[in-house]
């Protein structure tokens, strides 16, 4: 089933690109309030580059791991910014986890989410509660681990993951930023959603739809 796993991942990235495109203006607006107003643009450039990189890949021959690492490089080379290294490292770590795997079953998805959030954490040295995208990826990965441990069905798994992501994103409004540009405005970041967390929640929803 190598073909369909690679294709499923490619479809996932397509969905992610669509989700970002739909939220682009909203994300930039959120970033304008506490950052530099470019988050929607940056994410849009990044996922367009991922689509372009993947469309150059032979999905019949590629492994899921290759899809992930192609996405990582495509994203990084197009974007830079904070999100470039964060997601590129996350995707690379996910590619390592998927290496040798040909099947995107729930444990694979769990491991992918764990690797992704771990990569982001390592690169950005942020913690939960710092009002960043990690406040989405960490609870999402945690929910995935719990769901697998509890032997949940696929729909239940993704329902748990997306709801953890959405709650994490919503919770950033109550946090004072400790990382990234928003950390400079200190208490003034209170009451605003974190743009990176908001886009992360959209990405998780795109994952759920595609996988």
């Amino acid at each position, binding site marked *: 089933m190598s073909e369909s796993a690679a294709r499923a991942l490619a479809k996932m990235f397509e969905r992610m690109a669509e989700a970002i495109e739909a939220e682009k203006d909203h994300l930039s607006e959120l970033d*304008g309030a506490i950052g530099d107003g470019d988050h929607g643009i940056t994410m849009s450039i990044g996922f367009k580059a991922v689509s372009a990189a993947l469309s150059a890949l032979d999905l019949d021959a590629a492994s899921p791991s290759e899809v992930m690492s192609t996405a990582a490089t495509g994203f990084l080379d197009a974007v830079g910014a904070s999100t470039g290294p964060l997601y590129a490292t996350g995707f690379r770590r996910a590619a390592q986890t998927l290496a040798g795997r040909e099947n995107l079953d729930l444990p694979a998805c769990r491991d992918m989410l764990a690797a992704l959030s771990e990569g982001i954490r390592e690169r950005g040295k942020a913690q939960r509660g710092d009002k960043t995208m990690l406040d989405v990826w960490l609870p999402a990965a945690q929910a995935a681990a719990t769901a697998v441990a509890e032997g949940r069905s696929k729909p239940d798994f993704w329902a748990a993951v997306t709801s953890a992501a959405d709650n994490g994103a919503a919770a950033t409004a109550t946090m004072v930023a400790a990382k990234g540009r928003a950390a400079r*405005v200190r208490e003034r970041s209170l009451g605003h959603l974190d743009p990176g967390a908001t886009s992360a929640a959209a990405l998780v929803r795109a994952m759920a739809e595609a996988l």
Partner: protein
Amino acid sequence: VKKFLNNPNDVVEEMLDGLIAAHKPYLQPIGNSRRALVARNGPRPGKVGLVIGGGTGHEPCFVGYVGKGLADAVAIGNIFSSPPPDPIAKCAVAASGGAGVLFVYGNYAGDVMNFEMAAEIAEEKGIPIRTVLTTDDIVSSPVEDKEGRRGVAGNFFVFKVAGAACDRGMTLDECEAVTRKANDRTYTVGVALESCSMPQTRRHNFEIGPDDMELGMGIHGEPGVSRERIRTADEIVDTIMDNIFKEMKAEPGDRVAVLVNSFGATPQMELYILFRRVEQRLAAKNIAIEANWVGHYCTSLDMVGASISILHLDRQLTELLHHPCQTAVLTINTPETP
């Protein structure tokens, strides 16, 4: 907000077309990468290479400071976005003269991550890399968290000193040390009257009320550290200089360099009015101005606002400040022997 634009998504690429053509005498693309430019007259064997860079939207930063006697190469990101590791690593290779390469850039999470990844790539190729983060925005963090501060227009001075040190053939250690000293002795505070607008949105990033100003404004259109009632030019400079004097341990008789910088839309006339008060405040403390720059040196698209940077000189920094350089926006000549 109206702008001269074609497709807003092409704005960085088109700007690069323009600036590469305009500044041909000073710089050229590295290979076929337009996001990595090298000084024609910069790198040479035995010299420490200086690589600078960051997002676009700050023009003439950073590209205007590439040339003989200043930076050897510049990596260029999207608007307000760090460049990715790849062009930075290309810059490191192009700038390398076998004596190591110094990275100098602003202290932002994104830049740090990308430059660090690039440093790893360069070091795998055997190029020793040192990094100095500019952190001159003194209101962006309290003094206990000096290392957490961001780099703003004062990077002008840090680049200048670093470029001169490299051009004089100092070692990588020495270049790093003096650049770090320049950064430690550079103090900037910015004030915005209106926020900037991105080419893609053509809306203000955020609104500043009609009677308000934003103190501690950064150079990316991100909000400053406090919103205050707008005051007179002299009162604004006084607030800024009070902040600077609180940290700068200058004695009567000391010398400084001054940069009064427009964030984009504030015209030169107002900058002179600000400079006037800066000069008065320094003179009252018997601090002499060794050199000054008043103009557009590190902007934030079309933001209305300005920043004041002071470099507290010592003998070594003074010499390096006057070291000749030739770049698109800064030409300093060897003083004529009388």
